[in-house]
């Protein structure tokens, strides 16, 4: 116990590496999720039934099967059909697919929440469907997406300790090593929780700033 500070100092480079891995998984997972959220969210509003149906199916599938099952399936089951992905790639893919499906509902909901009158104003100005979506509806929907995206982003961050379960040397893995080496269980886990808390607060503040900017662009004061 007494040598925890000393051990911690020695372990700092490894902790930094772990932190970097966690950050990498968060950023890449969120980027993939954002991309999928748009593709699936827009497709699930398509006028063409096959496109809409396929998008709905994918969304329901990845929302309905647990993230943990998806991750373990990619890590354990996929190699059995001949595809072996890097553990980190499994994690990014699972995070992206799962949170992308949730994000698709956010995109769809935000687009639906833009008043119909705005679309009508676009029609009255001779704008076609694509132009209306791009210039009128999406800019207003974006402001509505930021707050729910913030929640999803924090959820995604909080899911990253899963990486350690599929052998990725992330922050949780490194701190667990520290715990084994020192036996300082309480201190190690408190440190880990504290670091995650700091990251969550940081991301929240960042997203709050984004939301203020987005709302100011709509002429709404203050934001949330």
């Amino acid at each position, binding site marked *: 116990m007494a040598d925890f500070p000393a051990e911690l100092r020695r372990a700092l480079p490894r902790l930094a590496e772990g932190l970097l891995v966690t950050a990498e998984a968060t950023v890449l997972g969120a980027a993939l999720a954002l991309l999928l959220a748009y593709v699936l969210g827009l497709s699930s509003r398509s006028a063409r039934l096959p496109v809409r149906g396929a998008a709905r199916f994918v969304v329901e599938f990845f929302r309905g099967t647990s993230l943990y099952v998806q991750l373990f399936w990619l890590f354990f089951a996929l190699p059995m059909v001949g595809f072996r992905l890097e553990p980190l790639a499994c994690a990014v893919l699972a995070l992206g697919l799962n949170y992308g499906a949730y994000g698709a509902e956010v995109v769809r909901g935000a687009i639906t929440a833009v008043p119909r*009158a705005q679309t*009508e*104003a676009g029609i*009255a*100005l*001779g*704008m076609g469907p694509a132009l209306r979506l791009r*210039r009128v509806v999406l800019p*207003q929907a974006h402001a509505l997406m930021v707050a729910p995206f913030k929640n999803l982003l924090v959820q995604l961050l909080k899911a990253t300790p899963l990486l350690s379960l599929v052998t990725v040397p992330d922050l949780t893995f490194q701190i667990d090593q520290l715990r084994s080496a020192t036996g300082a269980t309480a201190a190690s886990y408190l440190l880990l929780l504290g670091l995650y808390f700091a990251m969550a607060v940081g991301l929240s503040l960042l997203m709050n700033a984004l939301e203020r900017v987005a709302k100011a662009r*709509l002429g709404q004061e203050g934001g949330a």
Partner: protein
Amino acid sequence: MPTEDRKDPAAPAVRFERVTKRFGDHTVLDGLDLEVGRGERVTLIGPSGSGKTTILRLLMTLERVTDGLVLVDGQPYSHMPRGAGGKLVPADERHLAVLRRRIGMVFQQFNLFPHMSVLENVVEAPVHVLGEGREEARRRARDLLDLVGLGDKAEARPTRLSGGQQQRVAIARALAMRPEILLLDEVTSALDPELVAEVLDVLRDIARNTDITLLCVTHEMGFARDVSDRILMFDRGRIVESGPAGELLESPTHARTRAFLGSVR
């Protein structure tokens, strides 16, 4: 078959042939025939729910007809010819897009784009729909904002403006598309009483100085008298009486019209 713009110079600007519009079981328009001449100013009056606004919304393609045919400049608009026989089928988005550009609309609730400045609201469609150059569009937009008395508000956000100012921006935005037909849907109904005059003055100006075809739905009888050539009285999806503005307002022949005019005065 791509839609061609074949304007018939002899045809009326707008023609409804036996147009029926139903929402579920509710019949809003019932076999309506209607003609509006080129450059004519027509005002639709009548109790709420009588189908006036639906006529404007059908013309703007915000609703589709249940039955009947709408023509603009003699060309089928709600429908399009298909195949060698020229059989008329309900119009698709591409067909609508061509004729729709001749028509502009001002809404009761303004419907300005909140994420754009006043100037951007007016410039948006000329640049992205008509393909006008940005500089040219901006110059025209400033002229139009001057015309509606808001030259100094070009950079403001719409939400910063009063209702009357927002509605004048909406008028400038509609005019920027150089519409041949302008639809005014209860444009003063959402305004505080002291803001109504500034909007109506702008519209009187436009009526006086252009040859635009006007279709208005309004409860402002003074304005209706000033700008319209003809007034149509609606009740339950039918025209019960029509005539020159002064005549219909002074000496209505139909009991429904008398009752209605009595209630709005």
